[in-house]
């Protein structure tokens, strides 16, 4: 039976009002409420469900970042993961960290842990990259089932119903494979206090990217971060002719 790796990312909580730093180098994160990326919650839930159905043997929760990400791993453990891996990345490396570095880490871990499945959230709500799953599959040369809204394991194959523009697509891929979770895949359970207490007995291993042979050098540099432009008030017109005239004056038509 198989082992599943689940990626969980610590992001600014979805309900927080984001503020841009005065120097426009990024967003304010100090003292701001963080939590597990909602799509990662769905990924964890799916992995735990597969384990409860006895289709897989072990679920390992993985997160990359500074010490604080262990809170996110603990939440995953409280939801039912068996153990955690904390890949320590901090400082400049953490700020520059993106899908490329994460996917290299996951590819290395998948080989080390002999995983049959990697389940990730389809994207993170902070960077909205939607790249990590795809890159990880490419690095491992594994098939991918992205935007999964339904996952069924059938022997050595996985049937994935994908949410795509204009409808649903059903594919069958062989394991090992990478899946990314979409919103309607499942309803994540809440990590209650008793579950968090029980999960304290579970182990979280600690390692560095170098231990996995991964270099964290980023090829992307953030130049500037700005708030979206404030929406201007609309203009009301009396007649259709006025509308046409305004559109002409505006250069729209």
């Amino acid at each position, binding site marked *: 039976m198989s082992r599943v790796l689940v990626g969980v990312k610590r992001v600014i909580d*979805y309900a927080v009002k984001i503020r841009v730093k005065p120097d426009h180098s990024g967003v304010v994160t100090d003292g701001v409420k963080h939590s597990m990326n909602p799509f990662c919650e769905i990924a964890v839930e799916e992995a735990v469900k597969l384990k409860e159905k006895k289709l897989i043997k072990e679920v390992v929760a993985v997160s990359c970042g500074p010490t604080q990400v262990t809170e996110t791993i603990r939440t995953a453990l409280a939801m039912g993961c068996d153990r955690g891996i904390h890949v320590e990345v901090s400082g400049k490396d953490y700020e520059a960290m993106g899908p490329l570095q994460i996917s290299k880490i996951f590819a290395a871990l998948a080989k080390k842990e002999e995983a049959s499945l990697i389940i990730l959230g389809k994207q993170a709500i902070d960077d909205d990259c939607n790249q990590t799953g795809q890159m990880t599959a490419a690095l491992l040369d594994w098939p991918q089932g992205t935007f999964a809204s339904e996952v069924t394991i059938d022997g050595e194959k996985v049937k994935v119903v994908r949410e795509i523009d204009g409808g649903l697509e059903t594919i069958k891929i062989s394991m090992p494979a990478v899946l990314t979770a979409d919103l309607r895949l499942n309803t994540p359970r809440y990590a*209650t206090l*008793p579950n968090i207490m029980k999960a304290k007995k579970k182990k979280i291993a600690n390692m560095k990217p170098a231990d996995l042979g991964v270099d964290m050098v980023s090829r992307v540099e953030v130049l500037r971060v700005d708030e979206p432009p404030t929406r201007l008030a609309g203009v009301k017109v009396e007649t259709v002719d006025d509308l046409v005239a305004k559109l002409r004056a505006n250069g729209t038509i």
Partner: protein
Amino acid sequence: MNQVVKAATVSGSDMANPLRSEVRQLYKNLLFLGREYPKGADYFSERLKSAFMKNKDVTDPKEIRKLVDRGEFVIKELEALYYLRKYRAMKKRYYEEELSTMLNIG
């Protein structure tokens, strides 16, 4: 919190003691859940405390059991509330609203 827990104990009665730890755990669980309450953790913890204090003189174990069950129900309600809020926020941000949904039909 000790006030609250003491109040749930019937002096000299053995029956209430296992309930005492249940009441304590319920309070802790609700307090933990309240951290994410939309109107703020402080708002929640104030109301949680007054709700428990309101029943501090209840001695009948059957009554206490009923109140604890009600507390468990509130936990389920809060979990559902949090899930729906998050789901709707994600749906709004990442998925195009279909016309029928916008018009609240179908």
